């Protein structure tokens, strides 16, 4: 006989995980009642055992706990230790800035063991303390659509919705300073955008951001775009020849690598094509490589790379340019607004795929940033810039978002995706961000020759590839 779950009653299951987290250092084990409200001068009760104490005494008569010092709080775990990796990956933006919680945490007293390491023998141990995080942690089986049912046999037992296809929405944060979100949007039935990121831990040290936008209506474009993005990242992850060791030499090497990455991505797209499809898959390509503050960007099609410096006096700008009918119109003098809203605005003139034009040399651009000229590097698909095309407007949008959710790249990318969805979400949306604020100088200062770049926003002239109008 087959064992099946009984038809669930539709009652809301209550998650039990996360209700009680003994390792949560935000909770003071010795303070279940809500904090030391008593005035020290008034002969307060012992905060540990509750015994009334003699006014003026420094230690509790009953248990010996310190009455004079600052109230014991946590045992010195840094705030970063309780931002679990899950928070970074979660769809919801993590709490804005752990720094604000620093203020809540009083200095630790040495005689109190860190929460979770205390034992019943420790003075003042009062048993397991429930986490302040009272919301039940949703487990994998809670329906994300209605929030009430659980996933049984692949569908919610309350509203019938299957769990979301991970291809339709995913985020990545390879390092704290690099992250992105790839989202299906609101109108498309498939997410044909793709994103591939990588980064080394030290801020500003090295990162690769690739975004590919599969051409809708073509067969299997969602597979092709992901294959292209992954293949390109594979190429760009390799160290580039430093040449004579100058940033220019590195940038030249990076430019060659981007050209190779386009070729490999194109081959990857071709490899996904099944024999019999009348409309083979194709996609755009936009990528940026960062190494020690130097950005090299390249694109084919109408996915974009932007450099958005923090300082208002430094121009925000698109790196490279679109291979699109709209771009051709603008080159011919039509205004951006008109060109990008025209009938063929979304027709691209170059793309990757078996039917790609012969010349796939990416539009290459190099930007040198310094610790003094912090800013954001953004790679995105037209699902975002359709609603905010001008670089200056995009910078304003991003800086507004920073003001609201802080500077986590994933949280910011999600905020921009939400913005595009709020505007209608007509296309798939991908936003990848890297924060360049010169922090890299702290960890890789040796490799950053002093005086390598001088002055503000020393951006080298774009090394444009040949403009090709397919």
């Amino acid at each position, binding site marked *: *006989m*087959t064992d099946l779950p*009984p*038809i669930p*009653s*539709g009652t809301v299951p209550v998650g039990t995980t996360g209700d009680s987290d003994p390792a949560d250092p935000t909770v003071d084990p010795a303070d279940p009642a809500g904090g030391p409200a008593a005035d020290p001068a008034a002969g307060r009760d012992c905060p540990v055992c509750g015994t009334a104490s003699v006014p003026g005494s420094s230690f509790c008569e009953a248990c010996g706990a310190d009455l004079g010092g600052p109230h014991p709080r946590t045992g010195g775990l840094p705030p970063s230790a309780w931002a679990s990796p899950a928070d970074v990956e979660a769809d919801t933006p993590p709490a804005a800035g752990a720094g604000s919680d620093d203020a809540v945490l009083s200095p630790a007293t040495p005689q109190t063991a860190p929460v979770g390491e205390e034992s019943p023998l420790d003075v003042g141990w009062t048993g397991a303390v429930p986490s302040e995080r009272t919301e039940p942690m949703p487990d994998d089986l809670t329906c994300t659509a209605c929030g009430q049912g659980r996933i049984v046999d692949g569908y919610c037992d*309350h*509203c019938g*919705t299957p769990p979301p296809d991970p291809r339709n929405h995913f985020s990545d944060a390879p390092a704290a300073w690099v992250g992105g979100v790839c989202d299906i949007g609101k109108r498309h039935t498939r997410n044909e955008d793709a994103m591939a990121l990588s980064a080394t831990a030290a801020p500003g040290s090295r990162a690769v951001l690739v975004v590919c936008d599969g051409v809708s209506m073509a067969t299997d474009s969602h597979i092709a775009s992901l294959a292209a993005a992954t293949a390109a990242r594979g190429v760009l992850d390799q160290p580039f020849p430093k040449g004579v060791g100058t940033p220019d030499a590195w940038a030249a090497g990076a430019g060659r690598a981007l050209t190779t990455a386009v070729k490999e991505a194109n081959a990857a797209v071709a490899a996904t094509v099944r024999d019999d499809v009348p409309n083979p898959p194709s996609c755009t390509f936009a990528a940026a490589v960062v190494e020690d503050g130097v950005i090299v960007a390249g694109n084919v099609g109408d996915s974009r790379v932007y450099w958005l410096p923090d300082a208002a006096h430094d121009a925000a700008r698109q790196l490279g340019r679109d291979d699109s009918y709209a771009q051709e119109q603008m080159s011919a003098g039509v205004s951006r607004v008109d060109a990008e809203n025209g009938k063929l605005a979304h027709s691209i003139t170059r793309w990757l795929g078996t039917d790609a034009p012969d010349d796939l040399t990416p539009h290459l651009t190099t930007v040198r940033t310094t610790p003094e000229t912090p800013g954001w590097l953004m790679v995105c698909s037209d699902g975002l810039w359709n609603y905010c095309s001008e670089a200056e407007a995009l910078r304003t949008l991003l800086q507004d978002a920073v003001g609201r959710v802080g500077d986590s790249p994933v949280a910011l990318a999600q905020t921009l995706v939400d913005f595009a969805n709020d505007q209608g979400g007509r296309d798939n949306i991908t936003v990848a961000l890297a924060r360049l604020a010169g922090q890299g100088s702290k960890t890789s200062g040796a490799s950053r020759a002093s005086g390598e770049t001088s002055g503000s926003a020393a951006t080298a002239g774009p090394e444009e590839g040949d403009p090709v109008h397919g």
Partner: protein
Amino acid sequence: MADFTAEVFQNEFLPDGGTDVHAIVRVTSSGASAGAAATAAGAGGPESSAEVILIDTSGSMGRRGVAAAGVAAKAALNEIVDGTLFAVVAGNGTAQIVYPYSHQGALVPMSSHTRGEAIRAVEQLRANGGTAMGTWLTLARRIFETVPHVTKRHAILLTDGVNEGETPASLQAAVQSCIGVFQCDCRGVGDQWRVEEVRGIASALLGTVDLIPAPEEMAAEFESMMRASMARGVANVELRVWVPQGAELLFVKQVSPTLEDLTGRRTPVNPLTGAYPTGAWSDESRDYHVAVRLPARTLGQEQLAARVQISLGSDPVAQALVKAKWSNDDSLTTRIDPAVAAYTGQAELAQVIQEGLAAKAAGQDEVATSKLGRAVHLAAVTGNEEMTTRLRKVVEIDDADTGTVRLKKGASKIDEMSLDTASTKTSRVRR
């Protein structure tokens, strides 16, 4: 122990804005008959099933009818497996237990001895009095209620006439009181009984209805009916249907082997799930048509439209998932699943036959001609030759394609009744 499987036939694709999902769920049991044999042999206790035979002994049966009924009862008694509890009831304007004798209780276990006594008892039956089937059913219910521990409870009801000995409301009340107490297969002999009336009893009590044209054919029919009942080794099987929050369950119908609308028999399991009784099962396969109305979702979305489970008691033993996917691809959304189409057509066929015959009986010849013409057309397009043959005895077919027919002058009552009783028997849709 019986094994159940469930499979679903449907087109899960809905067009933009589409809301209605139709699916055929085929439930197949195996090992259920083995369960019956084991039960009779003592594994499940010798007294875990009970049979009551209800025989019409009204005056209209006459000497020949009652004699034939006695023969039929004997044939049925011979099929009852030893150990099974049983009783024989004679009914006319009232009902009396013919066997077992009053000092033996309401039911006795079958054995060679009790079988012999029962056969001698039915040979003593005499035709006399009127017909009040409600009293027969009520007596059967009281008999079954003396053995509450017995899970499989089945009766055979034989009648030959109209239930003129009591009001329709009285019969209806008696039937209602029997629902869930026992199952009842009903047979009418001759052409003086009312199909609609007896179908109402059989349908409510999860049984079948059929026509026995002549008394001499009763024995074979009783034998096969009782054999089928003995083969049912799993009692109280429930169909459970879950639909998501916000959805509307339009109907649940058994569509094979016979048509039976189960929609009104729902008992809630929880706010989203209803249970429908299906009675006892032998090794067999039954098809159910489930229709669900969902709030339309956006193109590309998918959801579970219904979860259909078979459960024994509260234990689900098999399930099928009915799905919905919204698509703008016409080649996907316009296709109608062949099983859904076939059973939808057969359900309509049954409906127009019953309505056509009712109109004819009421003297509304125009309505009858139109309904039966539609039936001829449906039978023709679905290739249902058996039904076409039966229809041909009632109407002259001018053009099957357009459904042009004329009511046949002097069509025999028994042909009309056989068409009526056969209308709910569906031809199985092959996969």
